[in-house]
């Protein structure tokens, strides 16, 4: 396998323009002769499908939900970054680029990140034109707020429902193309495999979730926009349906998986309440604009928060990171929370929580102002915990939220399988080892609206693609494999539920591949996972049949893939003997407990190649060259 990032030559700021000019174009009249499959309908997939449809391609878009509007991008709360500098606070494309590279702990590709920052400004224009109701000032112009890892206000938002409004904007654009006949939408269809012919991506195999029909769809190019794999931990802020299946199956067909161990633990989530917990709920990072994080100074202090005097409180983020304070990046804030809880100073049931306190902000700005800014988040918190955050500080704890890793892609967002493009959270591209808040929405929409529609055209214009018939041996073989696997899952008729396996896998991953990782722990995980996988294939219970709506079967397929993928993650985490961003190896830390990077040995993106389920994957390295920023130790002090 050869990794060629195909980064254009020339100065950083000119690379994207140069690449766009070099590209071969598809004649407008010829576009309708090309079929493009887009899997996933979130911000990346929805915007790509809509834009490709507008350009005149024949698009088939698939999602497992009952409507494309329900993709998990909808749950993003806080906002979307753009280098508009509307606040006149010194922002620029260069600063957004620098903050993102630094925030990612220097493990992302410079050229991609710079392009992302360039495009960020067009995204806001596009969304406003669609009617996305961003927050505004009284003068009628757009409002901004701050997010972690930045000292400028560059985040655009729509209350605490920014993802929802951006997604509805792109869903509406998508439905407009459905009406125009350029996009055909297949909801309740789950991609279960990728079809490659002579090493080139030519289609997908899906299962119709209503009647179980296994169908093959052939095309000239395939785009995966299927999100991240945070649910490998069972408990995460992801939606219940989020899964690794599409990207993992593509990996098994030859697509390299980039940096799978780079996962983001978000510092502000509602703590776990009990064993019944089915998912975790995020409280937007934007709350850290006005909320102050603290724990009692004394261990085991179980007094009510109101009874703990100011002098007995430790505002540990403000203390340790005076210049960024409560707006330290996510990885740093999460680790700091874990640290104080490990010291026995955590609050709430089980001591796994810290306070996020709005008392000062309410005193300063009034309750109404806070309600206007965060009302829906406060309401959500109260619903879940039965506590009123206007009166009592919120209790929060870190939870798995986002995965920076994903399928490896080149500058054109194409994987190591020609014709297979990967966009949004599903690829590994722009966030390095840690994503800054409000950058996921930016990346999803940049990929879908403004990058992929160009690069896919170049691929189609420069490739000679023979027509593939539905009875091609390669197509038949994949179809048979998918059908066989479904039959096998149902035939086990074991004793344990899918969820019980998923929970157990989640515990292994959280303990050994979560916020703090050690070689010993990762090796233990690498022993435990195959054993659990074997038990799964002998003892899982999937009632019902394959030819009906069967939610247990859907889950079983996804968990089966997590049970294989988890090993790739642990292998990556084990091999990366350094700490960077969200990947914290206990053995590699500075004296004061900060991440200790090893640029001499690990300044590369790890791309893993599948060798067989019971064999370790093969490592390939894409060296990361920093020509425009200096590799420094990240400091937010």
């Amino acid at each position, binding site marked *: 396998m050869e990794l060629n990032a195909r980064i254009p030559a020339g100065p950083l700021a000119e690379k994207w323009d140069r690449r766009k000019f070099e590209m071969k174009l598809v004649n407008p009249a010829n576009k309708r002769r090309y079929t493009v499959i887009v899997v996933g309908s979130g911000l990346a997939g929805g915007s790509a499908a809509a834009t490709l449809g507008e350009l005149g391609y024949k698009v088939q878009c698939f999602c497992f*939900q009952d409507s494309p*509007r*329900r993709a998990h991008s909808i749950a993003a709360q806080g906002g979307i970054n753009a280098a508009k500098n509307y606040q006149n606070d010194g922002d620029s494309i260069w600063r957004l680029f620098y903050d993102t590279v630094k925030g990612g702990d220097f493990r992302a590709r410079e050229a991609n990140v710079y392009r992302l920052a360039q495009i960020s400004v067009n995204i806001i*224009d596009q969304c*406003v034109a*669609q009617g996305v*109701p*961003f927050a505004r000032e009284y003068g009628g112009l757009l409002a901004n707020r701050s997010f972690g890892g930045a000292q400028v206000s560059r985040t655009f938002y729509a209350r605490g429902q920014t993802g929802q409004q951006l997604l509805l904007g792109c869903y509406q654009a998508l*439905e407009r193309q459905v009406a125009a006949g350029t996009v055909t939408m297949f909801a309740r269809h789950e991609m279960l495999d990728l079809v490659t012919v002579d090493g080139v991506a030519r289609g997908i195999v899906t299962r119709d979730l209503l009647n179980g029909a296994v169908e093959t769809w052939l095309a000239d190019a395939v785009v995966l926009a299927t999100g991240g794999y945070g649910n490998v931990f069972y408990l995460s802020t992801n939606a219940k349906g989020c899964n690794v299946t599409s990207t993992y199956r593509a990996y098994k067909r030859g697509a390299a998986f980039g940096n799978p161990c780079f996962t983001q633990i978000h510092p502000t989530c509602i703590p776990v309440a009990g064993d019944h917990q089915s998912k975790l709920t995020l409280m937007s990072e934007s709350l850290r604009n006005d909320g102050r994080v603290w724990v009692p100074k004394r261990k085991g202090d179980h007094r009510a928060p109101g009874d703990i005097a100011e002098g007995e409180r430790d505002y540990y983020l403000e203390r340790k990171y005076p210049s960024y304070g409560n707006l330290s990046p996510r990885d740093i804030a999460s680790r700091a929370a874990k640290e104080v809880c490990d010291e026995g100073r955590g609050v709430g049931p089980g001591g796994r929580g810290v306070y996020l306190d709005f008392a000062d902000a309410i005193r300063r700005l009034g309750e109404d102002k806070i309600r206007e800014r965060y009302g829906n988040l406060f309401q959500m918190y109260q619903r879940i915990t039965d506590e009123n955050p206007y009166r009592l500080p919120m209790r929060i704890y870190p939870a798995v939220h986002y995965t920076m890793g994903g399928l490896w892609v080149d500058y054109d967002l194409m994987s190591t399988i020609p014709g297979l493009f990967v966009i949004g959270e599903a690829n590994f591209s722009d966030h390095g080892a840690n994503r800054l808040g409000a950058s996921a929405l930016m990346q999803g929409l940049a990929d879908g609206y403004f990058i992929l529609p160009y690069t896919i055209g170049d691929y189609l214009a420069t490739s000679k693609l023979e027509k593939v018939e539905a009875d091609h041996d390669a197509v038949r073989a994949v179809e048979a494999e998918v059908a066989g696997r479904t039959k096998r899952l149902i035939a086990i008729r074991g004793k344990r539920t899918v969820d019980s396996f998923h929970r157990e896998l989640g515990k292994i991953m959280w303990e050994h591949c979560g916020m703090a990782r050690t070689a010993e722990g990762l090796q233990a995980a690498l022993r435990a996972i195959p054993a659990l996988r074997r038990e799964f294939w002998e003892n899982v219970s999937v009632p019902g049949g394959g030819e009906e709506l069967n939610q247990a079967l859907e889950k079983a397929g996804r968990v089966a893939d997590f049970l294989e993928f988890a090993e790739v993650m642990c292998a990556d985490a084990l091999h990366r003997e350094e700490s960077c961003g969200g990947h914290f190896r206990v053995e590699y830390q500075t004296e004061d407990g900060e991440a200790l990077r090893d640029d001499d040995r690990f300044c590369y993106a790890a791309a893993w190649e599948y060798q067989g389920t019971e064999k370790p994957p093969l490592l390939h390295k894409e060296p990361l060259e920093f020509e425009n920023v200096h590799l420094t130790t990240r400091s937010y002090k």
Partner: protein
Amino acid sequence: MNLTLHVWRQTSSTAAGKLVTYQATAISPDMSFLEMLDVVNEGLIERGELPIAFDHDCREGICGSCGMMINGVAHGPPRGTATCQLHMRSFRDGDTIYIEPWRARAFPVLKDLVVDRSAFDRIIAAGGFVGVSTGSAPDANALPIAKGDADAAMDAAQCIGCGACVAACPNASAMLFTAAKAGHLAMLPQGQPERSRRALSMVKQMDVEGFGGCTWHGECQEACPKEIRIDWITRLYHDYIVANATARDEIAAEAGI
């Protein structure tokens, strides 16, 4: 907590359905309603029985996947709450709970509590958008919008498309859903060029799908998890009447009027 559940079970859209009784035991008041159903389902699967099928995804009240009639009320007792955000502390030990799917001709039951809401997608496709293709937008701040208008647009735009308004309406009307989208766009300058066309075509599609008409019961706003108000329906009436009276011939012809 221990509860008695009467749950609608229906194997397919063509099969007859019926209420089946289950006991939910050792339920914590901190569980969400869906987590309570998870517990019941785990028990069913362990006994080799088919779990209760229900749509759900984000479980934080924003994706709009979940939704069921709980004791005859869409999304259950508390106001402004989707089923996934309903917690068992809203019930008492020993309660009996009836759980049924949304009931509407335009939302056929697919299995158990799962219904087909694709009609909503088709209403949006009929005109619930601003016709602006990627790349053609002016600078975002080139168009100042009064804060009050933007806030009002956001109030309507919050709709999660769950279908509770239809389920709660005695006529199974989709007016609140349709009015929320039309209203969101009508509040903004970006939505003006297509405002008349949008009102006509979305309402027409609503009729084609088999939703009933609005007779102003107001049940929809009581059930709406985002507390979208029926005032938006008044605005849609207004736009619809104006469009009928003033729409140019080509718009009317397109909308089949």
